[in-house]
């Protein structure tokens, strides 16, 4: 065991531990890297390094720490954390060939748990590089001269030779999906809705340019920007300018709501969640049903207040679901408790009460549309402004009369409160509005920039909830452009932590255009890959085979096909390897070896130091009846190998015939 092998395996472990930064609490990969670095340092200079016992104590501490962090050991993030620390600890006490091998291939487990979190193109590239590195290292332990460096080429060739098997298995192996393993809640500070409405919260969210989800309309008509309202949660508990969801919102599940397959059709929209971590299922007005990508997950859906949906356990990264929507609400019937519950409101200040009386007078009617007209006039004419960086206000009074600046949640919260104060049932909806089309326009990218809040009020004549968006009164552009484009236009957008103005100054005006173009291009490629990876399941395989005329292929048939495919590709590779094994040419030598083989089988073995002439003499003495022919054959062979006389196909045929005529009797 030499130093270079150990150093390479330390590097391999460090890389595979480091990829888990971001997925796990920072202390876990950090401690893993520290363990390996400790060992590395101990190899270089004389510092104490823990043995088996020390490693066991550390392992116990790490297990306890992980238990304290997650409250369990089994389950995705906890198991990954455990793996990270245990493999790092194993690297700490590498002793010989056996430990080196184990640590090397156990790194693949770390890779596997990383793949559970992400299957992006970049991650696939990393996977193949990691696999090649692992194989190259395992190779390295079995070649004597390690000084030549890592045998990358051999490892690459091995992966290349394995490619047919990989391809066959990928296409044919039946894709079971039990959905048993699911990532727990994301602990890495996921960006998303908290399910409450605090003034400033949506504005805060809109600072991030992270993608929330992508929506695929699959050739159906995409509603215009001004109607792209993605409903997340209904907030019906009023506390001044703050809003909360109903306390018992999950209790408000309608009987049978789990089976939310569409009853009456509607336009399907497929959503691919980016980061996960949140429980909200976003839909559009009015949802006719939500369909998760597995039956097990389907039972997790809850319908809560106001036809919104949430999951019992948070969404995983890249989880997909599909909803169906119908713009008309004709078929819907709303529970009356929902309506009557949407009237309670915190007591207003004197100034607000005064203002409401004034608005009542102006409206000349109790009907909502008239009141909203008055409110629109007020907000658009009294110097209210729309800003991403609103002053900190939690008081309705202060917002209406003093600051007059706010983001969508201020306007939505204020409007809904005012409506309730005037006796109209109203509630706040949080979600997203808008979305930017992808490069070729087949899907919409909804980012945190599109975070939005708006109002629904009860129209007592139409017996329906009607959407009204107070933001349109102060910043109509926001709704027409969508959040992303609006913020970019305002020049307030940042790109991955860099300010737009700074980027413009450094790289020139065209840079931002180029940047967003290339982002869209990357997004398109990434999504094409991810959707393929997500969709390639058993149903997809069946459809694929149906195209070739094999309808309803069973998992067993697929499995057998995969098996035979593997065998065929293995045989093919083996055949190529076998063909390339023997050096070309030297037919004389091969014929000579064949002849020796036949002589040996008849009891006359060639001695190690014996040349062809000596062998010929011995053979002639042994089988006098063949003496002449043996002499001729051996002479021919010697001539063709060492002589200069031309030797054509005819001579080859003759010599081969002569050899075949030699029949030796066995001793």
């Amino acid at each position, binding site marked *: 065991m030499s130093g270079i092998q150990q150093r390479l395996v330390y590097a391999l472990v460090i890389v595979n531990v480091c990829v888990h930064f971001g997925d796990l609490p920072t202390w876990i990969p950090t401690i893993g890297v520290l363990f390996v670095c400790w060992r590395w340092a101990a190899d270089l200079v004389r510092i104490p390094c823990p043995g088996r016992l020390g490693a066991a104590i550390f392992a116990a501490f790490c297990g306890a720490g992980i238990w304290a962090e997650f409250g369990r050991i089994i389950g995705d993030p906890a198991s990954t954390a455990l793996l990270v620390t245990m493999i790092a600890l194993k690297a700490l006490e590498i002793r010989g060939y056996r430990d080196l091998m184990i640590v090397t291939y156990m790194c693949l487990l770390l890779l*596997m748990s990383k793949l559970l979190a992400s299957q992006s193109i970049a991650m696939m590239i990393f996977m193949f590089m990691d*696999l090649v590195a692992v194989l190259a290292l395992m190779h390295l332990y079995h070649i004597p001269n390690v000084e030549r460096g890592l045998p990358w080429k051999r490892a690459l060739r091995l992966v290349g030779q394995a490619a047919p098997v990989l391809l066959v298995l990928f296409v044919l192996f039946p894709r079971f999906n039990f959905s048993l393993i699911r990532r727990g809640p994301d602990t890495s500070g996921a960006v998303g809705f908290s399910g409450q409405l605090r003034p400033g919260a949506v504005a805060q969210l809109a600072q991030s340019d992270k993608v929330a989800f992508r929506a695929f309309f699959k050739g159906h008509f995409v509603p215009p920007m001004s109607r792209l309202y993605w409903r997340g949660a209904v907030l019906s508990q009023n506390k001044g300018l703050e809003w909360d969801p109903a306390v018992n919102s999950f209790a408000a599940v309608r009987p049978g709501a789990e089976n939310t397959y569409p009853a009456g059709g509607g336009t399907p929209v497929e959503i691919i969640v980016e980061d996960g971590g949140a429980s909200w299922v976003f839909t559009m007005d009015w949802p006719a049903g939500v369909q998760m990508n597995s039956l097990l997950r389907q039972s997790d859906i809850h319908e809560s207040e106001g036809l919104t949906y949430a999951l019992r356990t948070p969404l995983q990264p890249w989880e997909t679901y599909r909803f169906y929507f119908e713009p008309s609400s004709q078929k819907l019937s709303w529970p009356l408790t929902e309506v009557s519950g949407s009237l309670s409101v915190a007591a207003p200040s004197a100034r607000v009460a005064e203002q409401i009386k004034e608005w009542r007078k102006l409206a000349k009617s109790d009907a909502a549309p008239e009141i909203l007209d008055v409110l629109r006039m007020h907000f658009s004419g009294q110097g209210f402004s729309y800003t991403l960086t609103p002053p900190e206000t939690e008081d309705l009074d202060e917002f209406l009369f003093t600051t007059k600046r706010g983001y969508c949640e201020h306007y939505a919260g204020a409007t809904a409160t005012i409506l309730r104060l005037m006796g109209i049932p109203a509630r706040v909806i949080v979600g997203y509005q808008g979305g930017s089309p992808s490069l070729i326009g087949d899907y919409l990218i909804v980012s945190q920039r599109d975070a939005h809040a708006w109002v629904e009020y009860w129209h007592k004549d139409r017996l329906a909830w009607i959407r009204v968006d107070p933001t349109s009164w102060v910043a109509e552009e926001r709704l027409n452009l969508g959040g992303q484009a609006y913020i970019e236009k305002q020049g307030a957008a940042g790109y991955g932590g860099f300010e737009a103005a700074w980027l413009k100054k450094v790289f020139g005006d065209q840079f931002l255009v180029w940047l967003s173009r290339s982002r869209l291009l990357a997004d398109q490629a990434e999504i094409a890959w991810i959707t393929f990876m997500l969709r390639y399941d058993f149903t997809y395989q069946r459809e694929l085979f149906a195209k070739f005329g094999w309808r309803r292929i069973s998992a067993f048939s697929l499995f057998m096909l995969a098996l035979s495919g593997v065998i065929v590709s293995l045989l093919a590779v083996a055949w190529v390897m*076998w063909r390339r094994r023997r050096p070309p040419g030297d037919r004389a030598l091969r014929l000579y070896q064949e002849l020796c083989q036949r002589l040996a089988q008849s009891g006359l073995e060639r001695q190690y130091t014996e040349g062809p002439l000596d062998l010929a003499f011995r053979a002639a003495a042994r089988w006098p009846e063949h003496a002449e022919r043996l002499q001729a054959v051996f002479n021919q062979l010697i001539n063709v190998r060492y002589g200069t006389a031309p030797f054509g196909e005819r001579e080859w045929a003759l010599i081969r015939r002569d050899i075949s005529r030699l029949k030796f009797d066995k001793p």
Partner: protein
Amino acid sequence: MGINFQRTERLYILPTGHGYAVLGLNVIFILVAAASGNNAVYILGFAMFGVYLLGMLATHFNVRALDLELVDVNDGFAGEAAGVTIAFSNPSRKPRHLIGARFRQGNRFRPGFLRAWLPKAAAAPLQAVEALKQELAPNARTLVRIELVKDDRGVYQLPRLEVSSVYPLGLFRCWTVLQFTSTFFIYPRRQGALVMATQEAGKGSGDFRGGQQDTQHEDFREHKRYETGESQHHVDWKAFARSGTMLTKRYETSAPRHFILDWNKISHLGTEQALSQLSLWIEELRGTDMSFEMRLPGVAVQAGRGWNHGQSCLRELAKFKVSEAA
């Protein structure tokens, strides 16, 4: 004797302990992929499985494309190394790596999967008994001596030789078992304290305890043709450079020229002790140019000198039966 794996010998292949572990890892990958519906993990599992199978093929071909020939059988003294010399040749276009060879003692059958848990197998493959530690280049041939130690003198059948390799990944072990028909001799342990005092022919008398003759005080007498097996100590290299024939220098010496190693004179030591003493004397004499003859009960080896003569004497000692002494 030519052993050509490709046509005559059977190759066996089984996973090593690490091979079973990686297979388990593969199963985990597929189970996790199925449990999470994650195609990336499926890809990892399939790629690893493909590599696993290809690694198996690579291990197989590494041993398969190898020709073996038994070059020499080396006798040895008891407690010292005997063995065989095998020519490994690689008639293929790719280099061959990490071929190990060891004698299989006894007929114990240890299945591969049990082997994984046995402590011996945990040793690094490079520490195998005898191994081809350097890679064998295409069309290259190399001689490897594979050793064997026996504690008792006698004539032995060569045990079966196992030639194996775990190259390239250490996940599979491919091996073949060679059965030889040859025998080899284990000479009696060379030890003893007696002084060789039996001299008959030649002039003068004296004691001889072996070792090199002191040539400084002797006079050159004649040239003699060099015989294979003779010590090269007295080769006249200058004459060789002149004429191209190897000649050894003979000296007038006072040392005895001929020894008779007689069993009866030392039989009081006991059979094995006496054989050991003879063994030591012959070993010392055969490196010199002195002639000697050996007399055992029922066996007499005529006078002769040199390596081959010594070998035939030693072989008689190895074969010697106690009943013959009685």
